[in-house]
């Protein structure tokens, strides 16, 4: 691959992100990160959290680069990092796989004349509103109007589907999937900020809250007073005070005009034209909506072998789904690269560690000037002099840049010369620089935990620049606290643990098989445990995918691939009876037909799937023509004559979903029914087909299927949860009664087939949850580590999650998550050994009262009771250092004071508090 690298005109290896350049730069330009709502300088960092935190010069606006004059940044830069002579460079790299993650571009509503985005200052996009809501945004999170009055809005309206589900005004007929949820979130946050006085209204077509926990959020937004109006606004007229008259047609068909102070356009996601070009260059196929084309059973593979895709370029999607895709794409690339694993790895040099046990503390304090960043405000020499007077401090100095390589070398030298056994660096934040200084300690033969940082830049000089005296006093306090804390520090050890190089996948459905195949293809012995007599799970009951692929054939291929894979052992008719151990070393007892075996494995993937709801409503079970979606699929597969004979078919959506006792959307049913309706139309074009729905949730490009169904003559009738359809069977006919949402009149449909789009239920496997110490939510689905960033793993290390056991999802997403769970598991397996942190909790068994509070509060399942039959400390608590994340919850919760957190022990924190001089 040939890469073109644009110059940033700032040497990354020299830039210390002090910001002096941006302060001096005379050129102000629109801040793209803040959607043009604020200004930034020509030399800039894109946003405060940017990684790496290094400045760059925007060549389009830089006065020097455009006109050859200025160069103020170059003159002020304390490290001579600015280099105007940089040129674009090309680099050729050899790679075995490519992952495309170019993301999306928000739709630009400027071309819509009816919303007048370009003319009316109080019409903003949702992206702009995100910046207004953000604490780090241009208004520090305080929402104001963009007209000159900058008033606080009292009424805000959101317009959904701007640039989505729209073929008339733009070419984006797909649903952008994420806008309903982000609009609700924006409305709720705006209300939280502004208080109950703020009225928020969302104008929508179908409310699409099909993600995990999203329906609950939607319901709670309604409870909080967010108004939902099902209408597409056609016109906005400005008022003299720059408010906006919004004209729309209400649910009752009457025209309404309402005035809002601010209108937010919920803009959709689209592929950037530059990415379309890139796709051409790379020779990968796109879909009708200009997203990357993929197949259901290979959801992250592009049309070109070896090139994979993830995120919104694969289709409009939210963060959790993008994270799933990302792991899946990494896994797919890993399958190709597995033979080369570790071949480019470098082994770090080992340093012998000095034993400092029993030594009197000898502390070295290094106070950093950070150029002028600290020294410009804080009197650094006086802080160093003060440090030298503190107990146990043997050496104190100040440095121009503590992080520079020469200072690091000098520091290691001083540690050795002065025989120091503890170090304090007063500089920036430990969150970015602690590992660097710890490396220096290791190089000097000291345990890395004999170290402490005092944050006198980010928490001091940068925020108190108009108060140098008090900032200097604060710096002394922070240094004193760090010295007192490090005085009490002990060398800590990081335990080493071998990871058993094999995996167990619980559940042999689509996602379980996808996970197992991924693990096996990357070279890991994998066991699939399936309680049924065959593999395949619920997929065996489904006819075809939304893209029209026949599932039975694909499933058969997958089952065959599992059978042919030498690394996979399949255990059918098998259940788990006991699980011992933890990450890296699980021991699971399997029972099958009266015999038991024990399997050792390093990781576990839970893929136990779900099941369909069995309806009690709508006469289900009393007439063979009334069936569930899966039963209709069986009839499709069997070419049942019932279908050929039918003249009229009705689908009822949300059967068992979005109910008070089951307040979640089952995600797959809208698409399934629309697809089945089309299948009926295809087989019997004259058949009258009706879908009774609450909101059609054909998200992403599945929207095209919905459009196709309408074009094919499928009739969609909306019903409300208060006025559900009524079903009766008399005289051989099924009568379905509903209220027509357009006319408001009751209609009765005579149906020959009635399909109930039933909810996807979890298996609510409480025993499995107990075995692997993982949680279930109220609905009975497993709870992942993080709703957004950790969707395919548990908080408990070594246990991973995919498929319907996580949440209802279609086959492509199940396969992606199966691959994702495997990918996350492989990050552990590939390490072969895991090292625990030194900063973990430990129990003093002599003080422990066996109350069990630690066992119940720990989110990572690290504490447990020592076996009752143990020779020592039976029944007392113990903490597994491998599972402990060092959060200290058990320490604070322990009623007996028996638990200590190494590195953050009580005496250390008390000493820090006592060191503060408030006089």
């Amino acid at each position, binding site marked *: 691959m040939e890469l073109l690298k644009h110059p940033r005109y700032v040497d990354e290896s020299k830039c210390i992100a002090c910001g002096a350049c941006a302060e001096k730069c005379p050129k102000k330009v629109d801040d793209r990160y803040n959607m043009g709502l604020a200004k930034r300088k020509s030399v800039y960092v894109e946003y405060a959290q940017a990684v790496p935190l290094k400045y760059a010069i925007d060549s389009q606006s830089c006065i020097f680069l455009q006109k050859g004059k200025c160069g103020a940044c170059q003159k002020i830069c304390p490290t001579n990092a600015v280099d105007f002579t940089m040129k674009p460079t090309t680099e050729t790299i050899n790679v075995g796989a490519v992952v495309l993650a170019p993301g999306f571009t928000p739709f630009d509503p400027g071309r819509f004349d009816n919303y007048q985005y370009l003319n009316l200052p109080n019409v903003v996009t949702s992206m702009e509103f995100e910046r207004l809501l953000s604490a*780090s945004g241009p208004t520090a999170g305080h929402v104001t109007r963009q007209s000159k009055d900058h008033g606080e809005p009292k009424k805000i309206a959101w317009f959904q589907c701007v640039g989505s589900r729209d073929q008339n005004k733009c070419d984006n007929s797909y649903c952008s999937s994420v806008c309903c949820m982000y609009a609700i979130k924006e409305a709720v946050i705006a209300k939280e900020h502004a208080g109950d006085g703020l009225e928020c209204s969302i104008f929508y077509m179908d409310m699409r809250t099909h993600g995990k926990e999203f329906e609950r959020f939607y319901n709670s937004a309604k409870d909080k007073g967010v108004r939902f109006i099902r209408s597409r606004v056609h016109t906005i007229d400005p008022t003299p005070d720059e408010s906006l008259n919004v004209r729309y047609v209400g649910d009752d068909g009457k025209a309404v005009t309402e005035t809002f102070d601010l209108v937010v356009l919920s803009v959709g996601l689209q592929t950037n034209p530059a990415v379309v070009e890139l796709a051409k260059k790379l020779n990968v196929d796109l879909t009708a909506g200009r997203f990357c084309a993929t197949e259901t059973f290979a959801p992250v593979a592009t049309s070109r072998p070896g090139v994979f895709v993830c995120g919104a370029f694969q289709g409009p999607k939210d963060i959790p789904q993008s994270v799933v895709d990302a792991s899946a794409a990494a896994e797919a690339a890993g399958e190709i690269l597995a033979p080369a694993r570790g071949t480019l790895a470098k082994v770090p040099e080992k340093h012998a560690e000095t034993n400092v046990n029993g030594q009197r503390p000898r502390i070295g304090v290094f106070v950093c000037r950070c150029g002028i960043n600290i020294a410009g405000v804080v009197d650094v020499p006086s802080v160093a002099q003060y440090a030298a007077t503190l107990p146990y401090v043997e050496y104190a100095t100040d440095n121009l840049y503590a992080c520079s390589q020469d200072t690091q070398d000098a520091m290691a030298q001083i540690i050795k010369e002065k025989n120091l056994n503890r170090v304090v660096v007063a500089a920036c934040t430990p969150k*970015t620089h602690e590992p660097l200084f710890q490396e220096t300690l290791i190089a000097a033969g000291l345990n890395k935990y004999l170290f402490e940082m005092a944050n006198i830049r980010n928490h001091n000089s940068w925020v*108190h620049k108009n108060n140098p005296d008090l900032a200097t006093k604060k710096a002394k306090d*922070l240094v004193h606290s760090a010295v007192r804390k490090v005085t009490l520090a002990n060398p800590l050890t990081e335990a080493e643990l071998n990871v058993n190089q094999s995996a167990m996948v619980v559940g042999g459905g689509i996602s379980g098989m996808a996970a197992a195949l991924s693990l096996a293809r990357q070279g890991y012995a994998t066991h699939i445990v399936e309680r049924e007599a065959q593999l395949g799970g619920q997929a065996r009951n489904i006819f075809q995918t939304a893209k029209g692929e026949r599932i039975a054939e694909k499933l058969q291929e997958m089952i065959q691939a599992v059978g042919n894979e030498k690394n996979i052992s399949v255990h059918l008719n098998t259940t788990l009876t006991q699980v011992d151990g933890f990450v890296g070393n699980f021991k699971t007892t399997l029972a099958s037909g009266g015999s038991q075996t024990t399997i050792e494995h390093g990781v576990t993937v839970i893929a136990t799937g779900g099941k369909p709801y069995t309806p009690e409503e709508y006469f289900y079970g009393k007439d063979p023509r009334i069936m569930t979606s899966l039963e209709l699929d069986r009839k499709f597969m069997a070419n049942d004559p019932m279908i050929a004979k039918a003249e009229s078919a009705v689908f009822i959506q949300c059967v068992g979903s979005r109910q008070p006792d089951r307040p979640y959307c089952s995600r797959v049913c809208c698409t399934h029914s629309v697809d089945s309706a089309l299948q009926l139309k295809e087989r019997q074009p004259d058949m009258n087909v009706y879908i009774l729905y609450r909101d059609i949730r054909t998200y992403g490009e599945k929207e095209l299927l919905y459009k196709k169904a309408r074009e094919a003559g499928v009739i969609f009738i909306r019903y409300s949860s208060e006025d559900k359809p009524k079903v009766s069977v008399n005289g051989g006919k099924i009568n379905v009664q509903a209220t027509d949402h357009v006319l408001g009149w009751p209609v009765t449909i005579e149906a020959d087939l009635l399909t109930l789009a039933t909810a996807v239920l979890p298996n609510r496997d409480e025993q499995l949850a107990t075995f692997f110490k993982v949680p279930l939510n109220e609905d009975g689905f497993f709870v992942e580590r993080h709703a957004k960033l950790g969707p395919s793993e548990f908080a408990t290390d070594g246990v991973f999650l995919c498929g319907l056991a996580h949440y209802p999802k279609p086959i492509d997403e199940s396969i992606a998550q199966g691959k994702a769970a495997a990918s996350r598991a492989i990050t552990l397996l590939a390490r072969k050994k895991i090292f625990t942190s030194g900063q973990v909790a430990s129990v003093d068994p002599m003080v422990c009262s066996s109350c069990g509070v630690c066992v119940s509060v720990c989110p990572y399942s690290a504490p447990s009771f020592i076996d009752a039959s143990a020779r020592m400390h039976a029944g007392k608590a113990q903490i597994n250092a491998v599972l402990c994340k060092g959060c200290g919850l058990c320490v*604070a919760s322990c009623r007996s004071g028996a638990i200590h957190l190494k590195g953050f022990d*009580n005496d250390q924190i*008390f000493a820090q*508090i006592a060191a503060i001089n408030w006089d």
Partner: protein
Amino acid sequence: MSDWEPKIVSFLCNWCSYGAADLAGVSRMEYPPNVRVVRIPCTGRMSPKFALAALREGADAVWVSG
């Protein structure tokens, strides 16, 4: 009394509020220098004893954030 400022000890979670305080610095926000931050690994580590110790040692207020 009008220029009285409380002396505050803040216990900040390493993963969120401590990082937020870092970002306040990166963004050059200004606030009064009468707060001393104690970094804790998680607010789960916070013990009532720490709050009492801070008040005993002369703080007027304790702020726990995470």
